[in-house]
């Protein structure tokens, strides 16, 4: 079972209590009526879907009920850091960053083993 640190409950809790809530730090335009259709599509529909380090919103729905932000490695599924909603994008602590890179190299991905090997 994955443990996720809730910044409001201040402890690690079971993943069962949490829900994923999409990409973090998507900023709503100041005047949304003035933007073009392309800009609206970019804001509303299009997400980066990055491989590796991503910033996501999560919700501790069966605990304190709060939304918060998490930095997660989508290759290893490891949570690198969580912080409260409303804070700007936080830099990763350096030690975590190196651990994440080492982890990424040791993880067997589908592309490495099954796909067209690069």
């Amino acid at each position, binding site marked *: 079972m994955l443990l996720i640190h809730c910044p409001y409950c201040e402890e690690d809790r079971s993943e069962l209590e949490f829900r994923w809530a999409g990409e973090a730090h998507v900023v709503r335009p100041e005047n949304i009526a003035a933007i073009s259709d392309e800009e609206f599509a970019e804001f509303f529909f299009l997400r980066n879907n990055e491989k590796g380090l991503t910033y996501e919103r999560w919700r501790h729905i069966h*605990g304190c*009920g709060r939304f918060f932000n998490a930095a997660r490695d989508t290759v290893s599924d490891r949570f690198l850091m969580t912080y409260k909603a409303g804070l700007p994008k936080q830099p990763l602590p350096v030690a975590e960053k190196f651990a994440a890179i080492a982890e990424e190299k040791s993880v067997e991905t589908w592309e490495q083993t099954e796909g067209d090997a690069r």
Partner: protein
Amino acid sequence: MAELDSNIATRSLPLSGVHGGSAAVRLEPAQPAERINLRVGAEDVSALSAALGLDLPVKPKTSSSANGRTALWIGPDEWLVFADGGGSIGSSLTQAAASSNVVHSATDISHRNTAILVSGPGAAATLNAGCALDLSLDAFPIGACSRTLFGKVEIVLLRTAENTFRVEVWRSFSDYAFGLLSEGARDAAL
């Protein structure tokens, strides 16, 4: 002609009459209680505390009791407050909260929730049958509380003594919760 009883409509608890447990654990429905779900901003917590006559806890996973009322920290701006009584409609807790004269939300959930008391040396093991929290005394001391999952249903768990827990659960989920607790109790006694 027989006299009509004036008390025609009586409420019964969703779990009234049930009992369960094992050699290690006792399961029983708690007495009816008045309950509110309280939401209030950080700046008005002290006003609500004064109105309710108990200090609303502001530290995660803690509770406080005074004057027959108990307040459980659920989230940074959310509390579950319960008090004895509550057979009738209308809650003295909402009235007490309203007397604070500050902006808040107090929703009467006296009859939305029901509670199960789990007591005995196997109480923690019984709850861990469906609950992933660490229930050791270090991690979850007396007075600790949390909203969490028990099997498939959401509960609010409060430790009232070393070997006693109160499980607050929605009334429509109470059959499921009691059933899973009964199975946990059987396993805890093995």
